């Protein structure tokens, strides 16, 4: 994991003191709320329905056990004892006081954690793949470049007042677990013919009111040019991005308005001028950062999958969990273990302080002290010895953190919704809970297999509903909450936006509709098609019929 040197530490400490001053000036009235708001947002602090909400960065989703213990401490000391992990690998605290914020940030800085630019019209947390550095299908560890980009974008003097927020994601593997196609800039690694790593640069993806899949702006970019190319993209966006309408201000709008060819022209023109200048990344800087992400000292262990299979044959529950939540590690004898924060009765992505401490302890005991946050609001322990899997599983069971549902129906991505968020039109958490209560049978879950449900409480799409296999969007119709379903979304390397299923449904009908969709899928699927595959093969009509019936039957909303 990256460790701050004296330069990183100084900058973060100075930022905390700057914010302390800004809070003082606000509390005494020297600056107005209007003047203070962008400053507050650039330090991650929102005014929400109940209190201030603080969004804390977990850069590219990598967290040490020490940092997780600090998160627990913050939850107890400054909040109501819990936190919420988000779809951008951040953690949110919902009950923060403005007057406490500088001290809270000071405590986070002590363990090299910040809330810098987790909000605001600037470049946000750089996100990545929760298996980075450990998955067998990786070309290179994307976190090296995430860290490079993080430093480059933090307190960038030119790009702190962009037209709107800016989100960058990086994937180091062909299998995209970072949703790069729906980011403002997406970076995909590949190998060229000479076996050298290159980035495919994507631009203009995004969800929200007007979702778009990103376009390829450059097929092949050398790593040394990463920062200068990103600077060119940002500069063109800063100058040309719309500022007349907050709903039309993202880069996806301007890219689609002028066309990717024109946008590329403008970027390339600027890039030609700057690419060999001071932003060219020296190999020694890549090497310096790379050293922080070097693989830990692994023991030389045999693969014991066969022995585990024997255990799994007699322990059905363990078998189920292994099948759904445990994936292969690139090093023999090790595994990657996923902990979903999703289960009946749980608020998706939420975790209380005791459990944070427990997971941190398990990370130390079983996984070399490191935890990852995924954009599906789950946790991952990336370095678990196969021989310790059964023991870890039993400990997780005691904590009720062993739900075997990764990527399944009850592994729901869900935004905080109207229960917390000032932007929401509808409550999303009760919808997730309803669905969870309907799909309690773990065998049925396993039978259905991979099926992602993503719920957003409003068009801002923080729940990523556009790219859920089933997407659910809360809308307000004449003062009542309705939920619009979409089918066929996907955030992986074959990204697609969901198709609208039909008129909005009242909350009570949503789980019934999900049941009908699942039944239709089970009926029509061939071989081992996932839901998404069946949908792409048979189209939306069978599902429309299943949920809404034939035109003659009763309409729902």
């Amino acid at each position: 994991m990256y460790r701050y040197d004296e330069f990183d530490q100084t900058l973060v400490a100075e930022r905390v003191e700057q914010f302390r001053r800004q809070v003082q000036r606000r509390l005494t009235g020297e600056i107005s709320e209007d003047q203070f708001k962008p400053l507050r947002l650039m330090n991650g602090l929102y005014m929400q329905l109940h209190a201030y909400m603080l969004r804390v960065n977990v850069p590219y989703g990598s967290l040490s056990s020490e940092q997780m213990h600090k998160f627990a401490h913050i939850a107890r000391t400054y909040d109501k004892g819990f936190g919420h992990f988000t779809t951008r690998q951040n953690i949110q605290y919902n009950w923060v006081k403005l007057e406490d914020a500088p001290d809270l940030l000071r405590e986070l800085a002590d363990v090299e954690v910040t809330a810098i630019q987790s909000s605001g019209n600037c470049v946000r947390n750089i996100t990545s793949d929760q298996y980075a550095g450990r998955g067998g299908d990786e070309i290179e560890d994307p976190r090296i470049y995430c860290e490079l980009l993080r430093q480059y974008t933090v307190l960038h003097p030119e790009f702190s007042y962009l037209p709107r927020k800016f989100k960058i994601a990086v994937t180091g593997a062909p299998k995209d677990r970072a949703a790069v196609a729906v980011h403002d800039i997406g970076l995909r690694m590949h190998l060229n013919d000479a076996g050298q790593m290159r980035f495919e640069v994507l631009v203009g993806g995004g969800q929200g009111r007007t979702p778009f899949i990103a376009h390829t702006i450059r097929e092949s970019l050398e790593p040394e040019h990463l920062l200068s190319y990103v600077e060119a993209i940002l500069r063109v966006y800063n100058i040309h991005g719309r500022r007349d309408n907050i709903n039309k201000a993202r880069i996806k709008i301007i890219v689609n308005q002028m066309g990717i060819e024109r946008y590329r022209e403008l970027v390339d023109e600027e890039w030609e001028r700057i690419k060999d200048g001071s932003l060219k990344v020296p190999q020694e800087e890549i090497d310096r950062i790379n050293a922080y992400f070097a693989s830990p000292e692994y023991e030389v262990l045999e693969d014991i999958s066969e022995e585990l299979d024997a255990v799994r044959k007699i322990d059905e529950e363990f078998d189920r969990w292994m099948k759904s939540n445990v994936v292969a590690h690139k090093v023999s004898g090790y595994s990657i273990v996923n902990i979903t924060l999703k289960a009946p009765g749980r608020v998706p992505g939420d975790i209380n302080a005791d459990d944070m401490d427990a997971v941190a302890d398990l990370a130390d005991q079983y996984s070399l002290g490191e935890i990852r946050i995924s954009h599906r609001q789950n946790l991952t322990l990336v370095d678990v010895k196969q021989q310790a899997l059964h023991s870890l599983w039993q400990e997780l069971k005691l904590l009720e953190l062993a739900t075997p549902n990764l990527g399944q129906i009850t592994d729901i991505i869900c935004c905080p919704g109207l229960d917390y968020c000032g932007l929401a039109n509808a409550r999303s958490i009760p919808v997730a809970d309803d669905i969870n209560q309907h799909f309690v049978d773990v065998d049925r879950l396993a039978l259905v297999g991979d099926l992602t449900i993503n719920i957003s409480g409003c068009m801002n799409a923080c729940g990523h509903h556009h790219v859920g296999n089933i997407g659910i969007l809360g809308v307000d119709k004449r003062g009542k909450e309705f939920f619009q379903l979409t089918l066929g979304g996907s955030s992986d390397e074959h990204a697609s936006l969901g198709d609208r299923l039909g008129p909005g449904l009242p909350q009570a009908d949503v789980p019934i509709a999900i049941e009908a969709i699942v039944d239709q899928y089970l009926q029509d699927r061939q071989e081992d098609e996932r839901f998404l595959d069946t949908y792409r093969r048979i189209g939306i009509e069978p599902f429309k019929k299943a949920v809404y019936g034939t035109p003659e039957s009763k309409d729902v909303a």
Partner: protein
Amino acid sequence: MALIKDGKLVDDVFVYVGDDVTLPADGAVIVNLERWQSSREELLQRNEPVGIRLRSDQPPDLIGACLKKLAVVALEFPAFRDGRAYSYARLLREKYDYRGELRAVGDVLLEQLHFMVRTGIDAFEIHSEDPIGDFEIAAADFSVWYQPTADGRRTALELRRQRS
């Protein structure tokens, strides 16, 4: 309204002249781009320092060819959220190698001064009870910088290389 230039409170020798206003007999003036375009000869014949004030929707390539004649380029920040002029400042310094005064005008607040300085702006029209105090606070906000700009400050990367 106070003018800070190179970290000091100074008198403003420039006068803004509106589009339809007769140019004064002598003295330094700043005009809009439209006025520059319509009265260019007249402005140059006066043989006095002249400057152009750019709105936030007027990028510097509109004046790239005539920068050598300009003593001042004033960049408008109509609302502090409108960050286009940060890019304009960098382009003026780094692409066009502009050496004259680069002045921030409009909604210029203490909390944005540090970034403005980094992009190459060296003069500020500030509305504040203590402009120099504000400026000194802002200038001292950070001592470590990640990104290279033309301000000559050494980045963390450069310092790390030097150390090793």
